[in-house]
Each structure stands twice: as structure tokens, then as C-alpha cells.
């Protein structure tokens, strides 16, 4: 029987199917971090259990960590306790931890792939909704809650109901100035922030095939922003070349065998999806959001919708509420809007390719004097690469501030926050009210669009600077 990519992996991981209930799904890799794991460890200990398969768990500290002076004790007491508790829990349960100061430390969805831990055909979970990132390798990867973290600790399994399957086909060549972030913001704007709820999404088509692995990660990363459990892309030569030679990648004879196994991971020609969507890549322009959910996005040279003309009452209220919060007006263009902050980072866009794109654009230019620009590389390894390639000098000369690895201003858990009422063009994934700090106004965009605004100080069509 013809199978989808998802079904090929899912079927291989079902330990048992409960009648009129969920499946018991085996989990290959479990990533954990300091914020969503402490209660799971406590729960486990309360039951008198230890971690069932500690060698399949990898930990890092990312959400809560400062991005300055990481060699010093963390100033914020609660953050310090949380990070310390991760260290103690990992030690007690013999879990590998890439904590602060470790050369592999970084945002969990950056380090998994860059270390070669993330591989095709795997089931991967983490107590973080952006776990969908790992789907770029042809893995079933999804975010879970803390009770589920505890379940995986206890049994290396989860009770899961098989989701519906959606395929999004993107065909054609991308326009100048359009990158992966624009593709995914465009898709979410098309189908809405809940358009894929209940589904697992496979991205396919010539535009996806042409993307690098890091670009594919950006796309899969934001699957959750349209409600999807996860997103995935069939592995191909681009995938294999990316993994080859990485720290934990298979090598020698085992490599050839793995590549053979991975090569059958694609949706069969006559496989059936519950829903298919077709998108013309040439219709995509650089994107930016104006509202308070990632589905409220427009082309950079487009106009904010006129709220009064929206027939659906709920949707109209959503947009009216969003515009009020954002201090923006119906029907207007965002071009020329002064911004005060630029944040380049997060599990969506903090990888070396993102930073290379930014460097290429800003080389020899200076930031606008009215904006603050913060670059937060996704991992210690990305930071090292930035220095090795001399990108740090380009950023410094442009007046950008380079920080140390972590989630930072994407969610404003540490001190990297945007002040109330101020605008931030952010390469992160969420523009929710208060996400980057209470009252902060977030405009989501690609690293290129963020870099363009850094130079001009206003929302800018990056193509004018290319």
C-alpha cells in the first residue's frame, strides 16, 4: 500500500495500538531544556522511577540563560535555580548535558541538527513547540508538554493519536530577496494561525527541494504557528551531505547503510493526504507581520487589511485588537514605519547561513542611529563560525551588538526584552502580545528584511538595498 513519508516513520515506531484510543509511539531522541523539564523530573522521582533510557536524552540550557557574561553566575535568582536544577537532574539521571560553558551549548533546535543528533526516520520530541524544526531532516518531530516529558522519561514512549496529514506543495523559483522565512510567513498568512491544527504537514515541491538544510529548518520550525503538530521534508542528497561528518552522525560502513535506509523515506507517488495545498513560489514577496499572531502577515509592499471589510466577526475582532495593540492602522503600508529594535536570532533564524545573509547585506554599511541591533547566534558553534568567517567584524563595524547563544528576546524570559510600546523587527517566530516583553510590538520578518531595517531605521523593502 502506498504510504506517506509520515506513515513510513510512524508505522515503524508504534509499539502498540490501543483500541479506540491512542498509539504507544516509541521515541528515538528526547531533547530537554531547563524550563519544561524540572516538574517532569520531580514527577518521576515522586513515583520512585529513574529515566528509562537516559542515553537517548540530550539536554541543554537555552530558554532562560543570559546572553552576556555566560561565564559568570546567572544574576536572576530564579533563572539560576532553574539552570542549576537541570545540571543536578542530568547528573543524577546520567543525561548528557551541553550546559552553559560547554562548546556544544545553544538553542536546542539549533544544536540537535548541527551535532548530527537529528537524523532522518527518527521520532524526536522536546518540551518545546518548535521541535518541529527537526522535521526538516525527514523525522517525525513535535513539541510536548511537561507531563509528556515525564512519560518519555518513564518509558521512552508517548501515547499519541495519529494526526491527519497535509501536504503543502511549493513550486517555482523564488523572487529576489525572498528567503525561507518569507515562504513560511506567506503560507501561514494564506492558511491562518490555526489552518493546520490537527495536521502533520509535509512540505514538498521544487522550491523546497532547492532549499538548503538550514532554510528547510526555518520552514519546518514555524509549522506550529499554523497549528500543525509538526512539519517535515523528505530527506535527499542535500540532507545527507549536511549530516555527513557531523559529531554524532553515523560513519564508515554504518553511514552507507543509514543512507540506504534514509533513501526510501519519501511519500509514495500515489500516497493519499487528507489535504493538499498548492503554492506558487513566484507569488511570494518578502513578508512582514503587522498583527499579534503569525498569520497576520503581508507582503512588505502590501497593505494592512481594512478591518471593517472583514465579514467574519471573530476575525475582525482579532485584527482590530491586534492593530490597537500594535499601534497600527487598517489599510496602511508598513514601509517607512520607524523601528527601534532589531532582533536577529531564535530557533527560526540564528544559524550560520542566516548570519551570512545579514553580513552580506550590511557589509560596509552602518546601522541607523535610532535603532538597537542585537544578533544572538543560535549556538556556541555558530558563534565560533561567525568569528572564523570574520562576520563579527562586519557586524561590529555596522554597530550591531553580538551576544552569546540562547533563546533571548524571542520570548523575553531572560533580560533581553523589548520595552513597552516600541517596535522590533524580529527574525523569531511569534508576535504575540507581550512575547518579547510586556507591551512590546513585534514585526516578524526574515533576516534580510531585519538587516535592511537595521540600516535604514524604518521598515524597508530589502530589494532596494540589494
Amino acid at each position, binding site marked *: 500500500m502506498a504510504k506517506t513519508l509520515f506513515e513510513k516513520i510512524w508505522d515503524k515506531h508504534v509499539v*502498540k495500538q490501543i483500541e479506540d484510543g491512542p498509539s504507544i509511539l516509541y521515541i528515538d531522541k528526547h531533547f530537554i531544556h531547563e*524550563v519544561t523539564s524540572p516538574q517532569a523530573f520531580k514527577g518521576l522521582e515522586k513515583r520512585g522511577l529513574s529515566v528509562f533510557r537516559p542515553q537517548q536524552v540530550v539536554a541543554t540550557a537555552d530558554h532562560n540563560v543570559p546572553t552576556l557574561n555566560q561565564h559568570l553566575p546567572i544574576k536572576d535568582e530564579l533563572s539560576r535555580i532553574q539552570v542549576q536544577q537541570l545540571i543536578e537532574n542530568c547528573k543524577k539521571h546520567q543525561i548528557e548535558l551541553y550546559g552553559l560553558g560547554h562548546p556544544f551549548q545553544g538553542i536546542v533546535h539549533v544544536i540537535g541538527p548541527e551535532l548530527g543528533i537529528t537524523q532522518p526516520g527518527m521520532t524526536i520530541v522536546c518540551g518545546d513547540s518548535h521541535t518541529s524544526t527537526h522535521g526538516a531532516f525527514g523525522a517525525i518531530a513535535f513539541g510536548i508538554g*511537561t*507531563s509528556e516529558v515525564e512519560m518519555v522519561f518513564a*518509558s521512552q514512549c508517548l501515547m499519541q493519536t495519529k494526526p491527519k496529514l497535509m501536504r503543502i506543495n511549493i513550486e517555482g523559483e523564488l523572487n529576489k530577496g525572498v528567503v525561507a522565512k518569507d515562504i513560511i510567513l506567506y503560507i501561514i498568512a494564506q492558511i491562518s494561525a490555526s489552518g493546520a*491544527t490537527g495536521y502533520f504537514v509535509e512540505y514538498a515541491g521544487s522550491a523546497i527541494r532547492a532549499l538548503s538544510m538550514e532554510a528547510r529548518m526555518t520552514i519546518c520550525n514555524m509549522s506550529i504557528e499554523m*497549528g500543525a503538530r509538526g512539519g517535515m521534508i523528505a530527506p535527499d542528497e542535500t540532507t545527507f551531505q549536511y549530516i555527513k561528518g557531523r559529531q554524532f552522525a553515523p560513519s564508515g560502513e554504518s553511514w552507507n547503510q543509514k543512507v540506504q535506509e534514509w533513501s526510501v523515506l519519501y511519500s509514495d507517488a500515489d500516497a493519499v493526504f487528507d489535504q493538499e495545498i498548492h503554492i506558487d513560489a513566484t507569488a511570494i514577496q518578502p513578508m512582514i507581520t503587522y498583527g499579534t499572531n503569525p498569520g497576520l502577515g503581508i507582503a512588505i509592499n502590501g497593505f494592512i487589511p481594512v478591518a471593517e471589510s472583514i465579514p467574519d466577526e471573530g476575525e475582525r475582532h482579532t485584527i482590530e485588537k491586534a492593530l490597537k495593540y500594535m499601534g497600527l492602522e487598517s489599510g496602511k503600508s508598513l514601509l517607512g514605519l520607524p523601528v527601534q529594535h532589531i532582533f536577529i536570532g531564535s530557533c527560526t533564524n540564528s544559524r550560520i547561513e542566516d548570519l551570512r545573509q545579514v553580513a552580506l547585506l550590511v557589509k560596509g554599511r552602518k546601522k541607523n542611529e535610532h535603532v538597537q541591533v542585537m544578533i544572538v547566534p543560535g549556538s556556541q558553534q555558530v558563534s565560533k563560525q561567525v568569528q572564523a568567517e570574520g562576520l563579527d567584524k562586519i557586524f561590529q563595524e555596522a554597530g550591531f551588538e553580538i551576544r552569546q547563544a540562547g533563546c533571548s528576546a524571542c520570548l523575553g524570559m531572560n533580560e533581553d526584552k523589548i520595552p513597552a510600546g516600541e517596535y522590533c523587527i524580529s527574525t523569531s517566530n511569534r508576535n504575540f502580545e507581550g512575547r518579547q516583553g*510586556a507591551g512590546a510590538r513585534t514585526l516578524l520578518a526574515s533576516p534580510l528584511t531585519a538587516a535592511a531595517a537595521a540600516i535604514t531605521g524604518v521598515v524597508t523593502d530589502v530589494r532596494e538595498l540589494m
Partner: protein
Amino acid sequence: MDKITTIQSRFVPMPIENIDTDQIIPARFLKATTRDGFGKNLFRDWRYSNDDESQPKVDFVLNHKIYSGEILVAGKNFGCGSSREHAAWAIKDYGFKVVISSFFADIFKNNALNNGLLPITVSDAFLQQLFQLSPADTLTVSLEAQTVCIDKSGQKESFEINSYKKTCLLKGYDDIDYLINMRTSIEQFEQQIA
């Protein structure tokens, strides 16, 4: 986990769509290492001006004394965004036992079920009817019968829940109890795939 059977109560209406988990519990309150005490920060930035408990926002429903009860009724796509289970803990800790909406985000729904907080999906039309009721009106939720009833009119709406989860909630079991008992099968599975 607490058992759920029948709940009769007033409800708190929140006719807003796409309520994300950053609104339910902002990230700065995720630094705790226990599951307790999140209720006081539920909808923190919608409840208070300048993060100050002495400055409640008068137009926010949780600050209206006339609204009370163990049932939260919210617009569609409730619980979207971050996977933080702290959102379910905060709602539960505040005193809600049931959340009714026409559409839930997947991760939130699982988190709620894993904490004995019952997410009930109803039709858009029924949801709109609930929003039209007065603050004194009560609802009766029966998990056994899988119904929500508007007590005043007797009007009932059925809801879906898979029988495994239903049993767990009725008896107060959780998935971990089940999974631990499966360890032998899991070990056999591991040997097969090795």
C-alpha cells in the same frame, strides 16, 4: 490526577479568538520548578496594568466580580503557541476545571487532558449561544454522557472524547501509569528494532 465526573457551575466568557499560551501565562513566570501557584499569574498582562496587582484592568473579565465559576468559555483556537504546560497548570490552579471552545490547539489540549482539565470542543453556533447567556446562568458538564447543558433552557450539546482518555479522566488515571505497565512490551519492541 483529580477525577472528573459532573460539573455544574457558572462560567467565565472570553469571546476572543487565538488566545495563545503567552497570554495565559507570560514567559517570565515560567521560572518555577514546581507545578504550583501559577493561578495568580493567569492572564497576567490582561488582568493588570504595568504588571501591578494594585492596578487591575477593569474591562478584563477575570476582574469582574459578577463572573465566576469553574468553566472557562473562550473563542476558537484556544491555547495556540508555546507548548508550556504551565498554561494548563495556571488555568487549573486558578480554579477552572473545564475549558469550552469551538477549537483547541493540539498541544494545549493534550496538556489539559494530562492535568485533569477537561477541554470541550463545541460547535461555533453553540459557543456563540454561550456568549449570549447572562453571568448568573449555569452550565452542567457531564463527562460520562459527553454533554454540555445550558441549565436554564435545557439545551444540550454533545462533545467528542476518545474512550481511553475518558476512562483516564473519570478514574483519575494518567498515561504514565499505563506506560510503566507497558515496559516489558517496550523492551521487546526495542529488541525488534535494534
